[in-house]
């Protein structure tokens, strides 16, 4: 400020820059540019921290705050002094456990969810209202409540289920089913019943109409929901933690959590980066498959709807 006052020229320059900026932001005839500024600031704020975390997974030092140059040792080093993502037994085990749970979750939750979606969309009888209502609850129940209740279930009522992978898989499937139902049911409503009716009119038996007509039409939604189940399972921390059974059933989010409570290291950023890449690959794969199967169906704006729909 005092510098600006010292020379008149600087003041004028600063003033005019300021005025131009103000004019650009507050121009009442153009786009509301202050909204542009807020939006892009938000976007940068929401993503930049993650980029910094990725950057420090390549840091040639133990520091997570000062940059010492590029290295991939936190991923690939076999030295026992460095707990690299792919060679440290703890980190590797966490990656394997996360992948195992996500895979089993997809394999179990997707078929159950697809069948439930079909049933709930078309079953009009006693109990259907209650079932529809029940399906919504896992979506809004805080994870800690589900964690506590499943923990107490497996320790007092269903004691045959051991903690660790079996309990974790059951927990993951329980919160995943509803996502599958929501996605598949949306698709069911948008395709309607006319294709199946046409098939029946042409003489198709119910089983044929289901398998040859409805199933292919539902396939994009099934693939999309499988991708989403995979992603939410990999992302889950609470259920995995509450139902785990010590170190050998630790997942990646649990590893990150434990590290943040002690001393996070570049390899912590590294394992988070690996899991992020895997999740993004699954989701992008899901979107691409969805787009491939539904090509030529929608018109303008369908891409946007897909993208928005993928955030649930």
């Amino acid at each position, binding site marked *: 400020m005092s510098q600006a006052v010292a020379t008149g020229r600087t003041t004028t320059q600063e003033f005019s820059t300021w005025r131009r900026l103000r004019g650009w932001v507050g121009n009442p005839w153009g786009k509301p540019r202050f909204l542009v500024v807020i939006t892009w600031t938000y976007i940068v*704020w*929401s993503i930049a921290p993650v980029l910094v*975390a990725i950057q420090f997974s390549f840091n040639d030092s133990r520091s997570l*705050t000062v940059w010492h140059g590029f290295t991939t040792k936190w991923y690939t080093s076999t030295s026992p002094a460095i707990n690299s993502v792919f060679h440290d037994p703890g980190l590797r085990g966490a990656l394997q456990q996360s992948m195992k749970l996500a895979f089993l979750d997809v394999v179990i939750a997707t078929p159950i969810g697809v069948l*439930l979606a079909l049933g709930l969309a078309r079953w009009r009888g006693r109990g259907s209202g209650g079932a529809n209502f029940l399906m919504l609850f896992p979506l809004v129940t805080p994870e800690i409540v589900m964690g506590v209740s499943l923990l*107490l279930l497996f320790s007092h009522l269903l004691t045959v289920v051991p903690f660790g992978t079996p309990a974790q898989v059951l927990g993951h499937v329980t919160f995943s089913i509803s996502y599958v139902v929501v996605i598949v049911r949306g698709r069911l409503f948008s395709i309607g019943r006319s294709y199946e009716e046409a098939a029946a009119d042409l003489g198709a038996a119910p089983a044929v109409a289901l398998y040859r007509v409805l199933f292919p039409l539902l396939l994009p939604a099934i693939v999309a929901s499988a991708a989403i189940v995979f992603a939410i399972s990999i992302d889950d921390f609470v259920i995995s933690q509450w139902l785990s059974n010590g170190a050998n059933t630790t997942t990646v989010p649990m590893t990150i959590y434990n590290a943040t409570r002690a001393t996070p290291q570049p390899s912590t950023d590294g394992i*988070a980066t690996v899991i992020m890449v895997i999740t993004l690959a699954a989701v992008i794969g899901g979107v691409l498959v969805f787009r491939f199967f539904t090509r030529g169906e929608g018109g303008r704006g369908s891409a946007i709807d897909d993208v928005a729909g993928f955030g649930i």
Partner: protein
Amino acid sequence: MYPRWLWPAFALPGVVWLLILFVLPFYAVVGVAFGSVDPILLTAVPAWNPAQWNFGWVTQVLTELQPGGIYWDVFVRTLEYVLLSLAGCVLIGYPVAYYISRHASRTKSLLLILLVLPFWISYLMRMLAWINLLSPGGYAERFLSATHINDLLFHLGVVSDPNNYLGGESFTVIIALIYGYIPYFILPLYASLDRIDRSHLEAARDLGASPWRAFLHVTLPLSRTGLLGGAVLIVLPMFGDYYTPNIVSGAPTTSMIGNQIDLYFHGGPQPTIGAAITILLSLFLVLLMGYYMWTIHRASRDLPA
């Protein structure tokens, strides 16, 4: 064309799954909370028969929930954190959702992808990222020091130690909660703003409303369901959050209800009290949810046919 039993049969496995692994677990919580504690082993002895329920633990928690009790502060703090985070999400999220739905034309697809991106990055990674940034010497910490914003925050009383953001600051926890949950708020809000028919706005403008008045009397009321939906979507999980405060603070001075539950199960195990708190929290959230459904129901009833 299909046999009548087909659709209920399709629904059966899913319904049975949810009954056993979603409904039955609540009965387990009730049994433990209304049960007793083994005097020697200090483990929970659940009571499955309602006739044998012991309401002592729930009553005890309820007593401590009154002003002056040990849970009162935690409850008030949780409420404070959730409401402030919700306010932050509205203040940041509304302009963003509004801009993307209304004004972004060429950049809309790109912005939507960037908006959805945080959904697919692990919540824990996004918290870890802030540990990197806010640790002493981290980019954000250095930025705040260099710009003297840290002094400003200190003098405003927002932070108690301007050089240690991760040592139990409510401010950090609230910022982390906003950062963590805002994507879930923006998306439903965006969807409801995007559905608004522009002709309503044009009509308001043609009838002489200023842009501001048109926003206030047309856009805002029409986006109410999106606002409420987004709010419910983030408020419910925030009430059960314990990991966010644990990660960015870890101090008892910032503990929320979730931390209290976590402590009774993972700290010094007293699952009976933990279960009692869980039941009360669930009841509170059911009431919130009921209020939301009632509002939505009323809103849809008021709409002209």
